[in-house]
C-alpha cells in the first residue's frame, strides 16, 4: 500500500494508509511468520502492559489497595459483572477468556493511540484471528453442551411454522457472518479513526505554523478516538458474551 498517494495540485500530500504498513523491526524485506515486525512489537507491549497491571499491580494483595491495584480490581469487577449480566451465571466459566480478550484489545487500542506507535487492532488479520477464535469456541461449546439441541438456534419455535424455513436460512447466514462483522467492526473503527487523524495531519503539514484549525480538529478526533478505543473493546467483549449466551441457551 505504498503507492496510495492522494496528491492534489496544491502540493497537498496525504498518506493516510501508510501508518498501517507492516515492517520488519530489524531491516530486511521478506516477512516470514517468525519475523519480528512492528505488529509483534506492539502486541508484545500490550501483553506486557496487561501483565504489569493485572499481575504485578495486584501482587501486594493489600486490604487497602494501592492505586494500581484498585484500577486492576475495577477492571476485573467490570468485566465480571458484564459476563454475569449478559452471558448468565453459567457463562462465568468463560470469564477468563472474555477478560483476556477485553483487556488485550483495550490495551492494544490505547497503545495504538500513542503518537508514532502502531495500532495492531487496525489490521483485519489481527482481529479476524480473535473473532474466528471466538466463533469456533462458541460453536464447539454450543454443540458439546446441547448436542442437536444447538440447531434450535436456527429453528425458531416462537415463529409460525410456515415462516420457520425462511427464518432458518436467514439465521444460518447471520450466524456465519458473525466472525466477519465481529472482526471488521473493530478493525474498521480503529483504522477509520487513525486515518482521519492522519488526513488532518496532512492539512496541518500544508498550512505550517498557521495550522490552528487542523490541530484543534486532531485534538478533538483524538479525544473521540480514546472513547472509541474503549467502546470497541467493550463491544467486542459484550458480543462475545451474547454469542456465548446463544450457544449455552439456543432455544431462546
Amino acid at each position: 500500500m505504498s503507492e496510495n498517494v492522494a496528491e492534489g495540485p496544491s502540493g497537498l500530500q496525504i498518506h493516510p494508509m501508510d501508518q498501517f504498513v507492516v515492517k520488519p523491526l530489524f531491516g530486511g524485506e521478506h516477512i516470514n511468520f517468525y519475523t519480528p515486525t512492528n505488529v509483534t512489537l506492539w502486541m508484545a507491549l500490550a501483553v506486557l502492559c496487561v501483565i504489569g497491571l493485572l499481575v504485578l499491580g495486584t501482587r501486594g494483595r493489600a486490604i487497602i489497595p494501592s492505586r494500581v491495584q484498585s484500577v486492576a480490581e475495577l477492571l476485573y469487577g467490570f468485566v465480571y459483572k458484564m459476563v454475569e449480566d449478559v452471558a448468565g451465571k453459567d457463562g462465568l466459566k468463560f470469564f477468563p477468556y472474555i477478560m483476556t480478550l477485553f483487556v488485550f484489545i483495550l490495551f492494544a487500542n490505547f497503545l495504538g493511540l500513542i503518537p508514532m506507535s502502531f495500532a495492531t487492532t487496525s489490521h483485519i488479520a489481527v482481529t479476524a484471528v480473535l473473532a474466528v477464535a471466538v466463533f469456533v469456541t462458541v460453536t464447539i461449546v454450543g454443540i458439546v453442551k446441547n448436542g442437536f439441541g444447538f440447531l434450535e438456534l436456527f429453528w425458531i419455535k416462537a415463529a409460525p411454522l410456515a415462516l420457520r424455513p425462511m427464518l432458518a436460512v436467514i439465521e444460518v447466514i447471520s450466524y456465519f457472518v458473525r466472525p466477519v462483522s465481529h472482526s471488521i467492526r473493530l478493525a474498521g473503527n480503529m483504522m477509520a479513526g487513525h486515518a482521519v487523524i492522519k488526513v488532518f495531519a496532512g492539512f496541518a503539514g500544508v498550512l505550517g505554523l498557521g495550522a490552528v484549525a487542523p490541530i484543534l480538529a486532531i485534538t478533538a478526533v483524538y479525544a473521540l478516538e480514546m472513547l472509541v478505543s474503549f467502546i470497541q473493546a467493550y463491544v467486542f467483549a459484550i458480543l462475545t458474551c451474547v454469542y456465548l449466551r446463544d450457544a449455552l441457551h439456543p432455544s431462546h
Partner: protein
Amino acid sequence: MEGELILLGKYIGAGIACIGMGGAAIGVGNVVSNYIAGALRNPSAAGGQMATLFIGIAFAEALGIFSFLVALLLMFAV
C-alpha cells in the same frame, strides 16, 4: 484512456460507497435517541439497558463500517 476511465469509476464508486455511512449514522442516531427518550421516561430502568444500547449501536455501526471498507478497497486495493 481506458486506465483513466477505470480510475474515474474507482473514485466515483468510492464516493457512492460512502453514502452507506450516512445510513449507519441515521441508524446509530435512531438507537441513541430512542434510548434517551426511554431513559427520560423511566430513569431508574436506564442503567440496566446500557449494554443493550451498546450492542444496538455496534450492530448499526458495523454496516457503515462495511461501506467504509468498500470505499477503502476501491481506493487502495482494486
